[in-house]
Structure formats: C-alpha cells, structure tokens
C-alpha cells in the first residue's frame, strides 16, 4: 500500500458510493450500521484532509494520473475542506437519528440508506471536483439522490413536491450544462485550473453568457428567492431526517459551487460592484423578508422550518455585493461561510427536533404543540437553541456570521443590507418564538402523547448545542477556510 492508497480525497468519494451500493445489495431497509460506520470513517477522512491542509499541504489528486486538462483533477482548498468536514459532521448524527426514526417497513425507509450514501458521495465529489463537466455530473447525482429521498414517502404531496423539485433542479443543471458547453467552446477546456489563467475581462460575450447561465442554473438549485418555490414542499413534506439533510447540506452544495466559480474562474468577469452582484444581494434580501414572512404565517411546523431555510439562504447571497469591493478572504466571505456552517447545524437540529415533536404529538400543526414544553423539554430546548443560531444571537456561530456580515456591510456603508440583516434576525425571532409560545401553552386534557426514542431527542439536542457552542470555535473554522491558499 502506498500513501496514495490512503488519500482521503479519493476515499471521501469512493467510500460512500461503496457502502451505498452495498446497502442496496443487502436489501430493502438494510444498511443502517453500514452507513453509520461509513460516515464515521468519512468524518475521520475529512478531519485527516483538514489536518493535511492546515499543515500546509495543497491536496490535488489527478484522477487516472492524467492531470488537467485531459483528465479530471480533484483539488481541496480551505473552503472545500470546511464543507467536507461540515457535511460528514452533520450527516453522522443524522444517520444515527434516522436509524431510530424509521420504524417498521415504512416506504421512506426502503431505499433510504443507499440514497443517502449516493447523496453524500455526490456532495463530497462536488466539493473536491476541479472540472466543470465533472461538476455537472455530481450536480445531477446530487439532484437525483435528493429527489429520490423526497419521493420516497409516496404520498400525493411528496410525489408532487419531488416532481417539482426534480424539474427545477433539471432546468438548473441544464442551464449550467449549457454554460459549460459555451465555456468549452470558447477555451477548449473545462478544467478549472486550466481555465483560470485564460478567462480575463476581455473575454468574448459568449463567456459572459456562459457565466450567467451557470450562475442562474445554480441559483435555481440553491432555491434563492424567487426560485424558492420548490423548496418548502420538498423540505417540509419529507421525513425529518431527509428534510434535515436537504436543508442543512444539499442547498449548500450548489451555493458552494456559486461561491467557488464567483471567486475563481468567473472573478475576472465580474467588475467590482457589478450589477449581477447587486442582483444577487437584492434577491437575498427578498429571500430573507419573504421567507420569514411565510414562516411567520404557515400553520404547519415543518413548513415553518422549511420557509426559514428560504429566508436563511438569503443571507448567503447578501454577501455578493459586499465581496465585489474587497479581496477574497475578507470578512464578508468568512461571514457567509460561517453562516452556511451555522445554518447547517441549526437547521438539521431544528428539523430533527420538529420530527420528534410531530412524532410525539401526532400532529403537524403548530397549534398541536400545546403542552410540549412540559412533556418534551429537551427537544423544545433543542429547537430553541437552534432558533438562537438562526436569530443570530450570541454566542452562537450564527451570531459570529451575522457579526462579520454586519461589519462588512457597515464598513462599506451599505445601509440597506444592514437593515435587512438586522430585520432578518428579528423576523427569525418572530417565527421561532411563535413555536415556543405554543409549546408553553398548557396541554389540552384529551391529548395522548406517543413515546419517542430518547436517541432522537439527544441527536436534536446535540446538533443544536453544537450550533451554539461552535460560536466559541469560530477561529478554527476561519483558520481552515484560509488554509491552502485562497479559493
């Protein structure tokens, strides 16, 4: 065995694909332990990779030994390592949660583990790929896995949501693919490292169009307002572990790609303060306001959490007008990545907590939560802690993210963004406390509570607590983000 045999970069993709396929062969509903062990190993790999990066290495893996532009390169920088670590770290508790969550031969469970395995493989592959066309394949892999998970319930709402999701994601990746095609036509390569020195401000119009197509396609996949219409039914209607995976991680993958392209090969095309940056920022503002507004209004608990995702995605896009004026690696970028991390932890906590609440009360509505404060204090506490992160209150990681974004916005005198960032936090408080308030109401007499496995409660709590406590470890994340050179 050579050292290459243990290259975490390659194994992070092979391993989940391997256990996913194996889980499928094992049979319907099987493979929970396989998945948990697999993800635990992946977490180890991601940590090893981060360690290597922090030690000054710049991990690149030319697949097939050919190297770009003929072959496909895998490469990891600080941003990719952060996302890899985040993905495995969130997936592991969710896998543990899902094992206890699905009972009997529910239709959601039958192909759950293979689908999750492919989902993780797709995300890991996406984070490390340095090839535009390969990225397209990972995007499709990710999209189909996610749709499969949503569709698994088999009921009308879930099927319709899955279909809407599928069509949106296909249109998104179609636009992305056309962009890639134009780029290949213009430069004769799809490798990021080959393209980087070729793309400059004098690029032909076709390249600008290509950039626009790729960005729009990815934006649809990220569900930025007003392309968010597919997200709430898909995330709100799926079983809790699936909702958590989708909201916490999957939307981040396409966002990651936007960020990567924006800071990477497309950077020379984007003049400082470009209109497209402002468009993204304004849509982000729209997402925050509209998503929060809908979350405040919906009667359904999981839909509330899903709309909250719509709102929180807005924060990820607010960063673009702020990025335009400063160099990469600045506070705004750090803020948006921290926000992605914080939101991943908090949203998975919130969906898992919501799953417990729905399971225990047997009701999906917020009105059905009365008395929960007494019966399921741990879960409610988890929900509240996750809410603290979403509101951006200290000492959570969400607060650090908001602090960095706010600082950047104030520093550049962008008062509109300042106002929206602050308003978004207050609106988040409005919908989070809406849930808590109902939970504090005394329980109706005739309510029957079903027992819930304690493991579910503890996973939700653990995720929520980590989203808050991570606020004390912000430095580590930023150090990893800065490692291995700028993206």
């Amino acid at each position, binding site marked *: 065995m050579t050292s*290459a045999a243990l290259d975490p970069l390659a194994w992070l993709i092979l391993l989940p694909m391997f256990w996913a396929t*194996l889980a499928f*062969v094992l049979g319907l509903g099987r493979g929970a332990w396989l998945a948990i062990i697999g993800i635990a190993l992946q977490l180890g790999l991601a940590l090893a990779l981060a360690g290597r990066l922090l030690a000054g290495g710049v991990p690149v893996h030319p697949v097939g030994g050919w190297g770009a532009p*003929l072959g496909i390169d895998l490469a990891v920088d600080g941003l990719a390592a952060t996302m890899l670590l985040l993905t495995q770290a969130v997936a592991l508790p969710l896998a543990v949660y899902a094992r206890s969550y699905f009972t009997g031969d529910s239709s959601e469970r039958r192909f759950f583990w293979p689908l999750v395995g492919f989902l993780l493989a797709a995300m890991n592959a996406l984070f490390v790929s340095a090839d535009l066309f390969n990225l397209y394949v990972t995007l499709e892999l990710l999209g189909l896995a996610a749709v*499969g998970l949503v569709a698994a319930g088999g009921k009308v709402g879930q099927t319709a949501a899955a279909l809407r999701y599928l069509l949106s994601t296909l249109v998104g990746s179609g636009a992305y693919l056309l962009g890639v095609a134009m780029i*290949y036509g213009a430069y004769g390569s799809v490798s990021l490292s080959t393209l980087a020195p*070729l793309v400059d401000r004098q690029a032909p119009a076709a390249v600008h169009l290509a950039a626009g197509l790729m960005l729009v396609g990815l934006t649809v996949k990220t569900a930025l307002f007003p392309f968010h219409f597919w997200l709430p039914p898909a995330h709100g209607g799926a079983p809790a572990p699936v909702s958590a995976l989708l909201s916490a991680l999957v939307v981040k993958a396409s966002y990651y790609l936007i960020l990567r392209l924006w800071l990477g090969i497309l950077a020379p095309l984007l003049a400082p303060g470009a209109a497209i940056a402002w468009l993204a920022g304004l849509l982000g503002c729209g997402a925050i306001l509209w998503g929060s507004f809908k979350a405040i209004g919906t009667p359904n608990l999981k839909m509330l959490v899903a709309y909250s995702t719509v709102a929180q995605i807005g924060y990820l896009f607010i960063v673009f007008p702020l990025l335009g004026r400063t160099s990469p690696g600045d506070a705004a970028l750090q803020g948006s990545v921290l926000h992605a991390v914080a939101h991943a932890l908090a949203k998975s906590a919130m969906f898992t907590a919501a799953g417990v609440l729905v399971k225990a009360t047997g009701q999906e509505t917020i009105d059905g939560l009365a008395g929960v404060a007494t019966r399921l204090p741990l879960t409610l506490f988890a929900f509240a802690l996750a809410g603290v992160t979403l509101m951006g209150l200290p000492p959570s990681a969400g607060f650090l993210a908001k602090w960095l974004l706010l600082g950047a916005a104030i520093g550049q005198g962008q008062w509109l963004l300042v106002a929206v960032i602050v308003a978004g936090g207050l609106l988040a408080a409005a919908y989070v406390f809406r849930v808590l308030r109902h939970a504090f109401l005394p329980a109706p007499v005739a309510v029957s509570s079903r027992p819930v496995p304690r493991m579910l409660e503890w996973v939700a709590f653990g995720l929520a607590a980590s989203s808050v406590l991570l606020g004390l470890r912000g430095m580590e994340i930023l150090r990893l983000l800065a490692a291995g050179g700028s993206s």
Partner: protein
Amino acid sequence: MKRIAGAAVMLSAGILAMALVVSMFELPPPAVRLPQMVQEKLPQSGVEHPVTAVLLNFRGYDTLLEVAVLLLALLGMLAGERPRPAAPDRAPTDPVLPGLTRFLVPLMGLTAVYLLWAGAHRPGGAFQAAAVLAAAAVLLHLTDLLPAWTSLRLRLRTGLAGGLLVFITVAAWLLGEGRLLQYPVAHAGSLILFIEVALTISLGLILAGLFLFLPDDDERRR
C-alpha cells in the same frame, strides 16, 4: 395573467436564443486543443477508439459517477412505490409478435456483444450494448414473454449494482497502485474491457428496470 407570463417566457427564450447564437459566432478559436492531447495519449489508454478512451480512461471518473446516476434513478423510482402483488400469468395476445421476438432477441444479444467488443476500436461500447440489451428485455416484456419485475430479489439486486460495485472496486484497487482509476498501461485494455462487461450487464438491467418496474403495468392492460 397566464397569457402575459407565457408571452414573457417566450420573449425571454427568444432573446436568450438570439444572444447565444450571436455570441457563438464571435468566438475566437479555443486556446486549448484537447483532440491533439487525446491522440498523443491514446496509445497509453489501452483502447484504440478515442471516444472510448475518453469515456473510460481519461474521463473515466465521470463515467463512474454516471453509472451511479443511473442506479440512483432506479432507486428513486422504486423508493416511493408500495410493493405490489405479482402479476397473474397471461396468455399471449398476439401470435405474430412473440414469434418475431423469439427471432429478434438472440440477434439483439449478439449485437450487444458485438457493440461491446467493438467499443475498443470503433464506435460502440458498454452503453450502447446495454441499451440494446434493455431493448431486448422490453421487447420480451411487451410480448408477455418476460413478466414485469415485481420484487427485488438478491440476485436481481446484485445484477443491478454489480457493474457499479466492480467499477468502484477496481477504482479502489488502482488507488493502491497510484491514483484513482489510474490503469497500469500494460493492463489498461483488459481492465477496461472487464469493467465494460460488468457495466453492460448492470446497465442493461437498470435500463430495462426503468421500464419493467414501472407501476400499474397490469392495471393498464386490463
């Protein structure tokens, strides 16, 4: 309202098409010339047909993921279905088609083998071969010689996943020798053929499965 939206969509589509076409004609020649590189490295790839070389060697990693995509589509399709009772046996409805099928299917099998083998030198390869196999299966089904698949037995599951498993295993094994999917030049040809054979069977099954697993089959014909 709906009409306005429709007109807006059409208008934007028109503008998009126009912009794309116009911009295409202004493109300078590309800076990177990949075809030359492919030609240069072709002898090391283990196959003689450049498209197959790209598909299974230079960009073999894309293909690995693509196989997963195909399996995933099948999983997604099956995930929400309730298990259905096995369909009752039916008598053949049309005397002509079965006869034709009995004649066609072996021919299609041969074609698949040819396509697979030809892929190394000329157009063809695992995907095309698999498609032909799948078409044969569909034909068999349409003539009621092959019932719809109602359950996923272990053998079928292994068949469906086998190609991917082989591909992953080879990739992992090669990782020990060098890089992910880095075929040693001496064995590249045989390794690729090995993977292609496994893929042909699995992909054929998956593609057929996309059709044969479809729900409501029997209900529809009643």
